């Protein structure tokens, strides 16, 4: 009897685990099926990014958002972190509007002053 119980428990746990795995698997597959990609390109003495949806450009950001003037990102890493943030917001079905606090969180140096 004990063994049967143990077997039941084992199967329940295994099933639960696999269920979670499958769910997670299908979830992440679904997410990655939204064909959003970022590209970093040089602008002046810095960098900009663009977000592509399949073969179409959705956002082209030659300058740092929010800031007045036309200042590109100082490093490719800054541009890339910001682009990835925009993609993650779009994947969560959030507005891709970036805020000052988000850009501070991303440690974009131009926002340290705020």
């Amino acid at each position, binding site marked *: 009897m004990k*063994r*049967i119980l143990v*077997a*039941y428990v084992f*199967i329940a746990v*295994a*099933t639960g685990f*696999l*269920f979670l795995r*499958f*769910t997670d*698997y*299908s979830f992440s*597959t*679904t997410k990655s*099926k*939204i064909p959003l990609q970022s590209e970093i390109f040089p602008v002046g003495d810095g960098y900009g990014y*663009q977000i592509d*949806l399949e073969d*179409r*450009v*959705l*956002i*082209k*950001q*030659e*300058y740092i*958002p*929010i*800031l*007045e*003037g*036309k200042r590109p990102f100082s490093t490719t890493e800054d541009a890339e972190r910001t682009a990835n943030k925009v993609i993650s917001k*779009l994947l969560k*079905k*959030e*507005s*891709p*509007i*970036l*805020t000052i606090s988000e850009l501070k969180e991303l440690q974009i140096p131009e926002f340290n002053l705020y």
Partner: protein
Amino acid sequence: MKYIYNMKGRVNHIKMLTMASVTLCLMASCSNDDEDEDLGNWIDQSVFDGSPRSGSAYFTIGNIGYSGVGYDGDDYLTSFWSYDMDGDYWSQKADFPGSARNAAVGFTINDKGYIGSGYDGLDELADFYSYDPTTNAWTEIATFPSTPRRSAVAFGINGYGYFGTGFDGDNDRKDFWKYDPTTDSWHELVGFGGDKRRAAITFTIGDYVYMGTGVSNGIYLDDFWAFDSATESWTQKLDLDEEDDYSIVRSNAVGFTLNDYGYIATGTYGGTLQSIWEYDPSTDTWESKTDFERTSRQDAVVFSNNAKAFIGLGRTGSLYLDDLEQFFPYDEYDDED
């Protein structure tokens, strides 16, 4: 006995394994089904589904549309975006420097954009700002000297800005004012014979600006006016319900110009509308065009430079970056696109 017990156990174990594998097979097939459904849904839905952003201000300079501020259902916004009509992409620009608001007006004078007035959730507003696209920078201009208001109309023509009607928090208005950017000053303009209203539209054809629609005390207005920019005088045109088959009256619509015809699109009349009406200034008549294909919605934004027009459904900026739709008035309707 022990052997027999083990045998039983083994038999049970085999049963269990069989059950388990059957269960797992079922689960795997279930899971695959789910995956297919999710994929289908993603394709069917707009990628950028979310809470609507409404009451954004917008203006067009050359082949770039600009749209900013607005209300997303939780917050009043200051973000400001540009849309490149040729490249079909958006960029987030310098934030609007005034307080977050919706129901503001936007207009263009000589390659600079202006946004002002509106509602911040508590009060109607009277401050105005100009945006220079060559520097991506905002400058505060002279504050509107009369009652602060929201849901007004504004347009730029001949180097001046014009701003009028709207709701001041207690009453709808019918006064019109002129902004002169060379002296940074406002002057009241007399001579508008129409009724007070809010949430009306304008469109510009040549030297004339046409103004109509809107609502006051629950009554939708049917008068329609032409403003001669050379003489700064208003002339009343045929009513928007002149013909029996007209269903043009509405509020919170958008007005735009394409190939020297005027258009009134979307808005609300009881419920939200998808219909688009085309105005021919040479005959003072209206014709119904193919309904806007997307979900009907009020407080849309429109970018038009007379050669191209893009309507977005009251969710600007970005939210729904794939939400803008170019309007081709003479193409046959195709539900496949």
